[in-house]
């Protein structure tokens, strides 16, 4: 009797249920579709066109020849110069990531811990640079690091130096500026990655007899490492795709994928090669990010 009733209800209930979910599905599609089309046009399509372009040919005299060839990849990958460019790009990323993390760590730790009423202001101050145009900040660094800049000016005015030392127009300047420009990202990533750190853990270690140094090595550092990893990854990723700063501060000596892509695309008009280099950058990027995340995941177990 009871089972019979249940079956009836089930079959009787189905149409209602289906009607409801069909309507719901249409509604969901309506929510998703406009945004997806926008993102397709503004993001996916360009990537597709670019990938297609990378198989075209840059003809003699610079014309564009529509074809299907691996020539551009061949050229890019068989040429030691481009290997050098890829190497430079990675080196820039590693160095900037490492330095940014080292400098950001004390700030992030300080901001996580401080109970000062100025905390809000200090956080704002640490990440306000993010909201300032990278072009403007690069200009600031040119002013600081240039031959006529603040540092050289100071050193020469005080007689510590007879001629300027070259800080700008080369890799060191690019690295200094990029570290500063990208550091706020590391600070942010760390602050949000320091979630597992809490005062009572460090206090607990203290009551168990750990000195300040031991507390740091055994508790603070291991617990903040995930934040450090994300901070590093973020800066790494942003610096290997940076363009404005290397371009304005590199003095023509800093060859990285981004500047090469820009040169090929706008100066030499070799779109197929620019596209191939972009695809290489993209793949490099994807592999590194995926590998890195795999690695850190294993570390964090």
């Amino acid at each position, binding site marked *: 009797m009871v089972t019979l009733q249940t079956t009836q209800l089930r079959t009787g209930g189905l149409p209602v249920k289906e009607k409801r979910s069909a309507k719901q599905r249409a509604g969901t599609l309506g929510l998703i579709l406009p945004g997806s089309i926008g993102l397709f046009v503004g993001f996916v399509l360009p990537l597709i066109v670019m990938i297609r372009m990378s198989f075209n040919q840059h003809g003699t005299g610079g014309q564009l020849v529509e074809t299907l060839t691996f020539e551009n990849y061949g050229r890019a990958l068989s040429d030691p110069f481009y290997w050098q460019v890829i190497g430079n790009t990675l080196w820039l990323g590693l160095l900037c990531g490492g330095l940014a993390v080292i400098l950001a760590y004390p700030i992030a730790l300080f901001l996580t811990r401080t109970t000062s009423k100025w905390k809000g202001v200090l956080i704002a101050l640490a990440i306000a640079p993010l909201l300032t145009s990278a072009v403007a900040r690069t200009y600031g660094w040119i002013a600081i690091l240039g031959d006529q800049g603040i540092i050289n000016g100071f050193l020469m005015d005080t007689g510590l130096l007879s001629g300027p030392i070259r800080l700008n127009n080369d890799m060191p300047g690019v690295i200094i500026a990029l570290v500063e420009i990208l550091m706020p990202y590391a600070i942010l990533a760390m602050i949000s990655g320091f979630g*597992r750190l*809490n005062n*009572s*853990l460090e*206090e*607990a*270690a*203290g*009551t*168990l*007899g*750990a*000195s300040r140094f*031991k507390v740091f090595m*055994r*508790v603070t550092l*291991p*617990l903040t490492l995930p934040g450090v990893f994300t901070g590093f990854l973020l800066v790494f990723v942003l610096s290997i795709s940076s363009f404005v700063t290397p371009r304005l501060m590199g003095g023509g000596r800093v060859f990285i994928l981004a500047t090469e892509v820009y040169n090929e695309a706008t100066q030499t008009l070799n779109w197929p090669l620019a596209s191939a280099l972009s695809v290489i950058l993209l793949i490099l990027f994807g592999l590194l990010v995926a590998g890195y995340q795999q690695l850190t995941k294993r570390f964090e177990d």
Partner: protein
Amino acid sequence: MHLSVQNLNKTYPRTEVPAVSDINLDVQQGDLVALLGPSGCGKTTTLRMIAGLLEPSAGSIRVKGKEVTSTPVHKRGMGMVFQSYALFPHMSVLDNVSFGLEMRGGGRRGNRKAAKAALDMVQLGHLAERRPAALSGGQQQRIALARALAIEPTLLLLDEPLSNLDAKLREAMRHEIRSIQQRSGTTTLLVTHDQDEALDMADKIAIMENGIIQQYDAPQEIYEHPTNKFVANFVGKANFIPSTSVRQVGEGRYSIEAGAFGDLTVPGVVGIKGDRAELVLRPHRVRLMADGEVAADRPRARGQIIASSYTGNVVSYEMQSSDNDRVIRIDQLSHPADRLPVGAEITVSFDPEDAYLVAEG
């Protein structure tokens, strides 16, 4: 005296009122003392000063007669269990427990053995390799205890160790902690705002309010002989019967006029001044009198039941007394046969020796 705290004071930076004022506390070797009080009364502040996590503004702390006030936290050798347990999430249970031993040096094998022993004491030896995140609240709680006990601390400090557990587990853990504490003989300070917990577990209880210790006594003393209205109200339920014509008739004995209950002689706090006071009467000491029952000398009052609440084992009634607007609460062990309806006329009485006079609130 194992722990002796003298005139301890703490005023936090940028605050006006002290969080803790002139705390004095002597704890005997092997005792469990509870600091009980409402939220914000300064319990944690006191405990943290004793642990060395917070610097006192004034006062001194001695352990076994040795002044430790300026000893840094990691050299005090105290064990502490935090409300949030504060287990190291990146270490295994065993590593957590052996952390303190490691900090004291000693061989790795010896440490691990001692840590195992501590884990066995809390009956969680089988979880040694787990990460804390993979444990239930009660298990984490016991690990935290094992970690604190592993270093054989001079003093065990517990800050609301049970407040994150659900009701059933909380009750079970009370006994467990108490028995581990007794077995190891570790002098212990327990911070709590739960009166049942304090009454059930402690050898002595310090009742705190606004940074001050209001009473420091054995649980039964606190409950039966509260020194003031705050203590009486905070610990257990109480009827307060305004009393007039208060007159001292002996050391801690008073003759009073207790409203509907008439003239009585009752015990009370020593040295109540003035002719008004309040009589503390616990609801379970109020007796419902059988119809026609006569109890010579017993104060009595008539009234009507205006509310009753049933929680299985206890029935609580609220009686509106017929001659004035006082409401008396009566707690009875429930029995289906005895349950009285709202509106019923009843007579209640109590033994004056079960009541206790305190100064007006």
